[in-house]
Every structure is written in C-alpha cells, then in structure tokens.
C-alpha cells in the first residue's frame, strides 16, 4: 500500500496553557486514533509528537559555507507543525478517511503522499 504522511498543525497557545488533565485527554485521543487506523484497514509506519517551536533550532543554508544556526522554527506560523504520522493507505480517499479521525485540536492536518524509493 502507498504511504501518506499526516502533518498535524495546531495553535501552540492551546498547549502552553493546557492543564495536565487536558494534556492527558489529548494523548488518549491519539491513542484512540492509532487504534482507529487499524480498524479502518490502514496501518501506522511511524509517528511522533513534537515539542513546541520554542524549543526548535533551525539550520539555514544561504548558498555558501556552513549553515547559519538560529533559534526558532524554520517558518513562523500561528499554527505550527506539532506532530506527524506516516501511515499506509490504499489511496488518497482512504488516507483522507483516516486523516479525518486524527486529533488536531482547533487546527488541522495536511496529507502528503510519501515518496516511494522503489519508484525513483
């Protein structure tokens, strides 16, 4: 089955002020989601939740020499990349059916087909 990556974008402000209970509820939602992927006939290849962008360090190449190190994410956005799943699904419709179940708070998810090295 082809692989798709589900990128989760959320407003980080929601996390900064989250209580431990709220945090636990979100973690449980993700646990439930991973179970639902299998129920939907897909499977998880990989996944991770990311620490907030305040902890990010960016290395940016500017043509010549070694990359410049800066504090912060590569792109500053209100809704930041907060985590991802790599899943296997039959086709885009199947991947979107699964992605619809993915918890993303008040934000949303982006679904991208993953490059298949055997087809390169």
């Amino acid at each position: 089955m082809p692989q798709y990556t589900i990128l989760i974008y959320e407003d980080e402000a929601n996390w900064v002020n989250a209580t431990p209970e709220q945090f636990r509820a979100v973690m449980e939602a993700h646990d439930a989601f991973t179970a639902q992927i299998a129920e939907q006939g897909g499977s998880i290849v990989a996944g991770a939740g990311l620490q907030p962008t305040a902890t990010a360090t960016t290395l940016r190449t500017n043509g010549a020499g070694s990359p410049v190190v800066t504090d912060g994410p590569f792109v500053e956005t209100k809704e930041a990349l907060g985590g991802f799943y790599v899943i296997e699904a039959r086709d885009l419709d199947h991947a979107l059916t699964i992605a619809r179940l993915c918890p993303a708070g008040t934000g949303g998810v982006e679904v991208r087909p993953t490059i298949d090295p055997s087809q390169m």
Partner: protein
Amino acid sequence: MTVAGGPTVRRALDEAHRREWAFVVAAAARLARDLDLAEECAQDAFVRAAETWPRHGVPANPGAWLTTVATRRVLDLLRRERVLRGKLPLLVDPRPAESDPPVLEEATVFRDDRLRLVFTCCHPALAREAQVALTLRLVCGLATPDIAAAFLVSESTMAARLTRAKHKIAAAGIPYRVPTGADLPDRLDAVLDVVHLLFTAGHAAPRGDALVRPDVVERALQLGRTLRALLPDEREVAGLLALMVVTDARRATRVAADGSLVLLEDQDRRRWDRAGIAEGGALVVAALRGGRPGRFALQAAIASLHAEAPSAAETDWAQILHLYDLLLRVWPSPVVALNRAVAVAMVDGPDAGLAAVDALAGDARLDGYAYLPATRADLLRRLGRHAEAAEAYRAALRLTANGAEQAFLAGRLAGVER
C-alpha cells in the same frame, strides 16, 4: 461502412468527438492507468479517424471504432515504454489488475468508466479551477487553447494547470473510481458545481465583449445530459439539467443584435425555445418529486416559472418568492438573498425590495459583487431617487468587466442622469 463525401465525414467526426470523446478517454484510462497517456491515445484515435474515414467511410459504430483504436494504441505504447513508465506513479485503480481485460466489454462498463472519469476530474483534493479545466479537457474534449480562451488565461498557463492536476491525481493517489455510500452526496455536489460553473462561465463570460460562449454552454449541457442518463435516480442531477435547459432556452434573446444585454422583462418571449422550456419543466417535476428539494431543483423551478410566464407582467412572483424562501433555507447564500430581494420588490413593491437589499449591504461575501449595486440602482430608479440610483450604477460599473454588462449599466446610468 458507408463511404461518404467530405462534409458528411466532417460532421460525423465532429459528432463522434462530441459524443464519444469521454468514452474513448475513459476506456483508454482504464488500460493506461495514466490520464496523460489516455488523453494522448484518444487524440491519436481521432487523428486516425480524420485520416481514414474520408477514404474508407464512416464506421457503423464510430464510438467502438475509436475506442478500439485508442486502446490498441495504449497497449502498443505500454509495451514499447514499459521500462520507462515503471518509474512513473500510476493511476490508482481499486480493481485488481487481472480483472482488466485488454479488449472491449459491453456498454455498461463504459458507462461506469465515464462516471469514474468525471468523479476523478472533480475530486475535492483538486482546486476548483483544476477540476473545471480537467473536466473540460478530459470529459468534454475541449482543446487546451479553447479552455484557456474561455477562462481568459494564456494557453501555457492552462496547459500547466492541466499538467499539474493530472500529476497530482497520479502522485497523490486520487483513486479512479465512482464514490459510494456516504461519500457520494458530497462528491456528486462537487461534480454538479463544476458542471454549473462551466455553464455559467459559458453563459456570462466573466470578461470580454461576448456574453455567451456557445461551445462551453454546449459542453456543459451535454455533460448534464450524460450525468442524467448515468445517474437517473439523483434528483439534483435532474435539477441542474433542468436549470441549464430552461436558462439556455432563452439564449437567443439574452443579447441584442448589437451584442448588448437584454433584461428578462424586455426579452422577446416569442423567440424562446418552447421545446427547451417544456423539457426543463418536465425535469423540474422529476427533480422536485420525493423529499426535500435541493438547490438546483429550486433554482430550476424559479427559472421555469419565469420561462412559462406568457409575459413579464404575468410572472407568478408570489410563487417565485416562496421558492426563494425555500432555496435560502437549503442554500443560505447572500447571492440567493439578493435575488430573493428582487422577488420581494415585485411582490411587495420597490421600497420593501430596497430594504431587503440594504439588509445585505454589510455582508462581506458580497463585496465586489456587481449585482448588489446594480440591483440597488434599479430599485432606486423605480422609486424615482435618480441621484442615488446614478451613484449605485456607477458603483456597479466599477465592478463589472463584461463588455455587454458595462454597456447596459452605462445606458441605465445615462437614463437617470438626464
């Protein structure tokens, strides 16, 4: 086979292109699992037809002839380019490959194939403008330069748009299939939206001097008829076809000989296409029957009431207002509310209509919509408030880029400035 002369063959080719293009592309796509290759082979088949039909006559079944040539060409190219194509993403076909026979099947398969092509072109993962362009190219067979002309972009822009869209279908794995069950209503909605957009784009060209592009209108109507034949139980399909047929029945009178716009109330009703109006009326009945009517059914019912009125003065505005109330409930769009305001003016007088229009003035979704100030201007004119009407006509003029509409508004403006 019948051996026929030049003009007859030309007509047969045009007819085959109009009727069979989607069949040929869809059949080729099933084998090729690549829309580019399918399009190329369909094109090749029509070129072959143009070469051989004048010499050997038009085949008894042009569609089968074209499909056979196109699918053979697919197989030929696939054999030759197997190694090269192994590296390209293929169309996701949910059916197992071994169930794909390399020869023609009975007609039911092609019906299904054509629908698969339509639903794939109108997949919500594609931008609306890409859906429209793909549908015109792959389903309707309009040439890229003609599509570019209809949407006022350069040929290279349109070609790039088509290439990008076809690439996304393959690379993102948009499945080549007809959606089922819970997915169907939304997906069908998207298809109907695209067809309606084609029709309106052909009927009121967004820019330029011509108000109507008959080629695009014809393709939209034909697509509507195809969908109606393929999905006879979908009432909104009947509704959309009714709306297009009834609107098109008035095509001849919408523009005067000098190219200027003629309002509904001023159109010569004797020149309306009675057969079209009758056909549309029957479709409206089918679309309204059984359950809550959809937005296309209601719009068609309104258009039908206008078309069936013996004169503008005898229009059943009370019934039209009632239909607008229902329409606003299923489709709470500010444009519908604006049209409803016109009906209010006809039933309760221009004062009431103006109040309804002004209630919409703050809606940001109508910003830049020329019909809002144009409607306001017309009501103010009828109330004798000429200075305010002139101001509203000028505002409408600033917002329209269509030559015929500009000329109409300028004429009305001159009328209230006198």
